[in-house]
């Protein structure tokens, strides 16, 4: 059996990222952002491997961000770990409840129901004047055990936290895919009925995976909120969810590290599109998307895999 090199590779990546973050301070913000979004896409990767495309991960992304935000803004909590845990729990709880309904759906109906639910959250947030409606509100600067993670002088501590979080999540998912429940994912995607014949409950498995994806999205949303410093209902809009799906497909489902790579490259391409063609960045982005879809059908990760093979 092939030696599992992924954990050591992930740890090596963590060290590399921490060093890069030290010497390239301008990229810390983008890196933290890419990890926040990458966490959500990681959840999508899990669902994709199970054969489900959720167009409503924005719901949990937004919910996690708002859970952390309300705690921070209205109760004054700034401890990052606490905020992340609360965000994950809130999103997980919501996913557990909504999953009861959603776990029965497949294919395009699953996608559309998830979209409809996220748009309902959007509508609710827009109506809420206390939460600032479409203007949203700002989050206070996060701290960890009393020490500031973000300040004029440095964003490095927050970046470190994000890297550790990202690698930890990737490792956790890597090991999850090796558990019996994790191995069910590709089986469910290929042929659900046979999985049922084998004695496993597909519905329960899908429900669990949906909750995991929800938790990841919630934590990702809180991290994004903390680094941007501002949250608004746009996070629950269908275009945000669509962006996650796009990044997930672009990255490919080849590895647990793929979502983070894809997320980072997407942010990079978008930034350069804004800078070099402010009047036609949509054209640039659409063209880049098409090129990747046409020439790299297995996503960006296939570039890494090819080199390895």
């Amino acid at each position, binding site marked *: 059996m092939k030696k599992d090199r992924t954990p050591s590779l992930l740890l090596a990546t963590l060290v590399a990222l921490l060093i890069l973050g030290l010497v390239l301070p301008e990229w810390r913000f983008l890196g933290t952002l890419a990890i926040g979004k990458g966490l959500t896409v990681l959840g999508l990767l899990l669902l994709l491997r199970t054969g489900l*495309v959720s167009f409503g991960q924005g719901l949990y992304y937004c919910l996690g961000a708002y859970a952390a935000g309300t705690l921070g803004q209205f109760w004054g909590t700034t401890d990052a770990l606490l905020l992340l845990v609360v965000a994950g729990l809130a999103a997980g709880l919501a996913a557990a409840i909504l999953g009861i*309904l959603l776990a029965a*759906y497949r294919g*395009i*109906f699953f996608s*559309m*129901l998830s979209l*409809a*639910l996220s*748009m*309902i959250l959007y*509508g609710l947030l*827009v*109506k809420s004047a206390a939460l600032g409606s479409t203007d949203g509100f700002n989050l206070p600067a996060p701290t960890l055990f009393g020490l500031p993670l973000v300040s004029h002088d440095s964003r490095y501590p927050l970046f470190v936290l994000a890297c550790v979080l990202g690698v930890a999540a990737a490792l956790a998912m890597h090991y999850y895919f090796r558990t019996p429940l994790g191995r069910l994912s590709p089986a469910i995607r290929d*042929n659900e*009925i*046979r999985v049922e014949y084998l004695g496993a409950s597909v519905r329960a498995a899908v429900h669990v995976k949906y909750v995991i994806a929800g938790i990841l999205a919630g934590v990702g949303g809180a991290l994004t909120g903390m680094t941007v410093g501002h949250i608004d209902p746009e996070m629950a809009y*269908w275009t945000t969810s*669509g962006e996650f*799906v*796009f990044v997930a*497909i672009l990255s490919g489902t080849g590895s647990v590290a793929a979502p983070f790579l894809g997320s980072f490259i997407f942010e990079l391409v978008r930034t350069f599109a804004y800078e070099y063609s402010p*009047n*036609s*960045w*949509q*054209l640039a*982005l*659409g*063209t880049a*998307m*098409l090129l990747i*879809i*046409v020439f790299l*059908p297995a996503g960006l990760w296939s570039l890494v895999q090819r080199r390895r093979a």
Partner: protein
Amino acid sequence: MSALLAVVVDGVIYASWLFMIAVGLTLIYGVMKILNIAHGSLYALGAYGAASLAGYWLSQGYAPFGSYAALLAAAALVGLIIGPLIERGLLRFMYGRDEIILLLVTYAVFLILEDAIKLIWGVDPYIISEPYGLLGIVEFANLVYPTYSFMLIVVSLAVGVLLAWVLHRTRHGKLLAAVIHDREVSQAMGVNVRRYYLATFTAGAILAALGGALTAPTVSVVPGMGVEVIVLAFAVVVIGGLGSLPGAALGALIVGLLRAAAVHYAPALELFSIYLVMALVLAFRPQGLFAGEQVRTI
């Protein structure tokens, strides 16, 4: 009493508009199983094309009633040019790949077209309101409506009837049903599936552009007008059942009436009405109101 009448009339007018914008989307999905996000930009292209063509017609001083022909011509032109361009130039290389990939391809096309529109027409609004006012107004029971809105109802009915006739009564329509049911077998039987796909996509594009062209006189044509339409059309199509023509009509009617009722009696709920209906339909009858049961192969 007049409020209730207003709800019904408003509901039907809005429903006819929804049907016009949704019918192209459901047609393309029904035949090709592609959820065409670029539908929104085709709608916008139809509106811009109509504004340009009708604007040119009127500025030359020709008969004002000819502007209606200009609207229709613009829609046809947009559909006939852009439809095949997208289908032949891009989509046909992607058939057989996952539904999701095709959806993302149409999303990329949508982004490209949005900027193309901006580069060609700029960001200033285009106003082409003459056709709207030309037919005058209709007054009854203390309510006032432009005749144009009722004409829109007639046009959408006509489009629906025409499509139904083509699909059920003509030979091509029946062959199309075979293609929908099983693409491989139809191809094996000698049906030129490629040509049917091209025809269907072009027809869907023309219908989307027609929706835009007929809407143009009622609004100012601005960038981004296609984005809002995508989600609306989507919701209507889901409610009625993907690929079902009568479903799109019924879905449009339900959403139209509900929204009108919300506007008149509970304006605060208006924002939710469409997504709530969509979620409810998906929760209780996911295949939509009209589509048949989905059969899964083992």
